[in-house]
């Protein structure tokens, strides 16, 4: 019996091991084929074969695109980064043959191009040709945000992203749309349920995690690695822009619900005020953008955007925020040149600075300067007659782009926290009586200005 036991055990073990070995082999083969075929080969070191594949795929793609007269331009951050280092050289010798493949062979999974929607006709022919050339392609469509703000309009879904895949490389084509604030917008990349989640490693895409807002770029036709391609004229500023391009859509649906609850004030006064506020905001944006000063919608203007996607008609002023590190002495003269008179100036650059300009008629432009601390951000307030100081605390925030009254402007990305800090949890309920010294839920007393400084920190014109 014992003898048999031992033999049986041995036989069983070797059998299992054989089975496992076989299984392992099969599995490995399957795994390999998947990696090679459908998914991407994760090349750690750069092999020359892989390098030239990338270049070939890009070349094929550019051929496809030009055969259909579709103007695309390169926005790939990796390649633009490399190009930027040699930009002088590339600009000066636009046609020179390149001795080595320097840019398009750089190791990466994707090459990203941009396409302006209005410059091409959505034609099916392109995709057929692409298929003939061996590309697999994926189209990501979604709702048109330009109709989102509209009462119950439903248009066709628009293409936001295309991915063309050939061999081990993929081309990511981002579709840009013109928006009302005279800027370009691209949509987020969201996969619908039936889509192939492994078509490409989506996480590695440079565009699509969030929607983005960009200025219309000036383009330059260059020849790099023997390929003619359009690139943004100034790659470094494009890359800079890209790093904070995140765009927030206004919450149109919530805004509609709000209007249902609190019907919009359609009186002539409200219409007039909105018109004035809009033109004041346009003027302020123009002035500050010319100075290169970053600003965002603050207080009531921000609340109006967040709550009702419009100027609050009874708010009586336009409020902007600026980080104190972005403060420039030119701000006041620039506004004065633009025809806005300084109405008052409270505080000083080191503490609680606040500027107020008189716009057309009664509309006031308030600029609050924000001071960053380790765990919060604050801005200050001053009561003119008593010299009392106030401090308004906000949780830390970053800045996003949005579209507001036909303008591309920044707002805090963490808008809800920002609005709630300022207006409390009841921000959804319109309040007509607002006292800036006591109503905000984030206000703190901050002492009194020393009397000898009053002349400096309380200036009223």
């Amino acid at each position, binding site marked *: 019996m014992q003898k048999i036991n031992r033999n049986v055990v041995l036989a069983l073990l070797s059998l299992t091991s054989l089975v496992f070995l076989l299984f392992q082999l099969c599995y490995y083969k399957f795994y390999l084929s998947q990696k090679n075929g459908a998914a991407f080969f994760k090349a750690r070191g750069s092999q020359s074969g892989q390098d030239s594949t990338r270049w070939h795929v890009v070349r094929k793609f550019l051929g496809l695109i030009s055969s259909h007269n579709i103007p695309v331009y390169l926005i790939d951050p990796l390649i633009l980064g490399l190009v930027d280092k040699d930009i002088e050289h590339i600009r000066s010798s636009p046609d020179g043959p390149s001795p080595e493949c320097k840019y398009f062979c750089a190791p990466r999974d994707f090459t990203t191009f941009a396409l302006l929607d209005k410059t091409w006709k959505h034609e099916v022919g392109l995709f057929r040709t692409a298929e003939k050339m061996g590309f697999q392609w994926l189209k990501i469509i979604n709702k048109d945000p330009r109709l989102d703000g509209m009462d119950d309009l439903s248009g066709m879904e628009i293409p936001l992203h295309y991915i063309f895949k050939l061999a081990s490389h993929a081309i990511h084509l981002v579709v840009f749309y013109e928006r009302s604030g005279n800027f370009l917008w691209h949509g987020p990349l969201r*996969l619908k349920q039936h889509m192939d989640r492994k078509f490409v490693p989506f996480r590695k895409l440079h565009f699509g995690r969030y929607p983005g807002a960009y200025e219309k770029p000036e383009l330059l036709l260059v020849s790099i690695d023997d390929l003619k391609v359009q690139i943004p004229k100034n790659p470094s500023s494009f890359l800079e822009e890209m790093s904070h391009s995140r765009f927030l859509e206004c919450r149109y649906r919530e805004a509609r619900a709000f209007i249902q609850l609190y019907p919009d004030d359609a009186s002539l006064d409200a219409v007039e005020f909105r018109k004035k506020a809009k033109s004041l905001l346009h003027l302020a944006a123009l002035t500050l953008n010319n100075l290169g000063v970053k600003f965002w919608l603050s207080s009531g203007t921000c609340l109006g955007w967040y709550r009702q996607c419009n100027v609050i008609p009874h708010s009586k002023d336009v409020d902007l925020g600026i980080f104190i590190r972005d403060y420039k002495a030119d701000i006041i003269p620039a506004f004065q040149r633009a025809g806005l008179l300084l109405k008052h100036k409270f505080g000083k650059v080191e503490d609680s600075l606040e500027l107020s300009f008189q716009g057309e008629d009664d509309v006031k432009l308030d600029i609050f300067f924000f001071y960053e601390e380790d765990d919060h951000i604050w801005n200050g307030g001053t009561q003119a007659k008593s010299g009392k100081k106030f401090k308004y605390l906000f949780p830390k925030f970053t800045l996003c782009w949005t579209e507001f009254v036909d303008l591309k402007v920044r707002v805090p990305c963490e808008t809800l926290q920002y609005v709630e800090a300022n207006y409390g949890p009841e921000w959804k309920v319109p309040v007509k009586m607002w006292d800036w010294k006591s109503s905000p839920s984030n206000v703190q007393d901050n002492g009194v200005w020393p009397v000898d400084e009053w002349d400096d920190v309380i200036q009223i014109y």
Partner: protein
Amino acid sequence: MDEWKPNPAVKPHKKRSWYLAWKYKLMNQRALRKLCQTGAVLFLLVTVIVNIKLILDTRRAAYEEEEESAQDYDDEMLNVEVPRHPINNKKVLDVEVYSSRSKVYVAVDGTTVLEDEAREQGRGIHVIVLNQATGHVMAKRVFDTYSPHEDEAMVLFLNMVARGRILIFTIKDEGSFHLKETAKNVLKSLGSQVAPFLSWRDMWTFVGKKGGEVYGEKHAKSPALSTWGDPVLLKTEVHLTSVEDAECHWPDTELNRRRKRFCSKVEGYGSVCSCKDPTPIEFNPDPLKDNKVFDVPVAVIAGNRPNYLYRMLRSLLSAQGVNPQMITVFIDGYYEEPMDVVELFGLSGIQHTPISIKNARVSQHYKASLTATFNLFPDAKFAVVLEEDLDISVDFFSFLSQSIHLLEEDESLYCISAWNDQGYEHTAEDPSLLYRVETMPGLGWVLRKSLYKDELEPKWPTPEKLWDWDMWMRMPEQRKGRECIIPDISRSYHFGIVGLNMNGYFHEAYFKKHKFNTVPNVQLKNVESLRKDNYETEIHRLLGEAEVLDHNKNPCEDSFVPDTEGKVYVMFIRMEQEADFTTWTQLAKCLHIWDLDVRGNHKGLWRLFRKKNHFLVVGVPASPYSSKKPSSVTPIYMEPPAKEEGAVAVPAVAAAEQT
């Protein structure tokens, strides 16, 4: 292992195999054997463990990768799209058709596709067309064959239906009174036994395939003139054919794919779906040289009149200089068929959920459409606004291209319109001539973005105000004294006879005889003279040149204007103040032009043509041009007829249709 001690003393077994022999031989080298065995077991164990680990690892890695690649990129919204029409593999359809005095219905496979039991409505023959392969409803029509001419429309429709389609007929109330021989013969040719003998208040249902079998027919005769036939209910089965058989075999192109999609869904569009030589759906008209409106968005405002939309888009896409990419069709409501038409032509369409009633709904639809247009084309300075019941002249865009700079530069302009309210066959003559008018004609016009964004949009009438958008736009608060530029001969033609404020009689009286330009590439004359101040100079020049007509004659008579050609004549009518249009209205009435409200005036002056002569009418003394009146001439005064009941109501309704 130690327990295992083979007994060497045991006699070798007879059947001892070679294996055992070999084993026993090895046994002698104990130490070596032991080592090998242990090694083998260990190796096996390790292999197994490593294998299991590897499997687990790769599993997890694969799973993570999947998670990873998709996270963040998932559409937050669950995809709730379910195929609208589940694919039905059934080959037979159950069809139920009911005909009676007060109710008709048709059910296909238990789904009611037609039900009409409304009082005083839906009288006549109801026709439903089904796709012979899918059973989908492709068209639904009712022809009130109790009334004259409706049977002709029915014949026209039935002739357009493709062979092989399934036709369902049912009568509600009465459908034979004006059902003439021709129509009866067509029904007979479809296989109906009863149709030739249909008579007063008979009930009738019929299901058949065009050019093929009859699936059933039922008929109930009316026993007496004053009573109706008994209700009839026809239950029958229809055998479906394969999809291939139901489709035409056009060459596989992008255009034909659109055509195929369209033709498998709807019926009643004639040759666009014929298998042989279908009518084109792409027109490629000549481009315009120096086209200034190529980048101007075109908003087509539509409701649920897909046949109109089809006709309209055909003419629009055939106009020289059209840019299909700039066209957006705004459909008021979730109607499928207009959207099908839009897709047939490869245009983009937007549907608008109705939010209000009647006039206010149209008005809200306009607002949404205009706002959306400027959102979609943020660069545009203008938008062309068209409606679904307009024919567009071949030189529509050429006309706009030549005049649009005026709208950009001249602040005193409100719009450019393609429509001349007074441009009838007998009152319009010169395709190259433009006017300035104080009224807003609509019907194909150009809107300036700044006007819309800064003035109109913010105070657009809200839904609860049941205002017509165009009446509102004509109000002095909005127009603020600005004028529109119009052509003498209209560049659009209003063909709609089914509309909110529209009926056949009204259309016949006011729109049918409207002149419509068909000449391509008309070079407009002296466009610069349309600027505010230039126009005054021009008018003074004209008046200076004009011959004063004999004011003793009756202006309504043809002989009032001499039988000449190409001359300029002027007449003076009485007009006490700016808003006194008594005489003008009477004159307009007898000249058979628009008289329902005042249109086409410029500072008390009207310009039109009579007998190919330019004919000017000046209101004295309200018009600043009154000074041109020779002192010997007494302005003509025409008495309005005694007020009739209802005479006021008509203009109010009618005027609204000018949208």
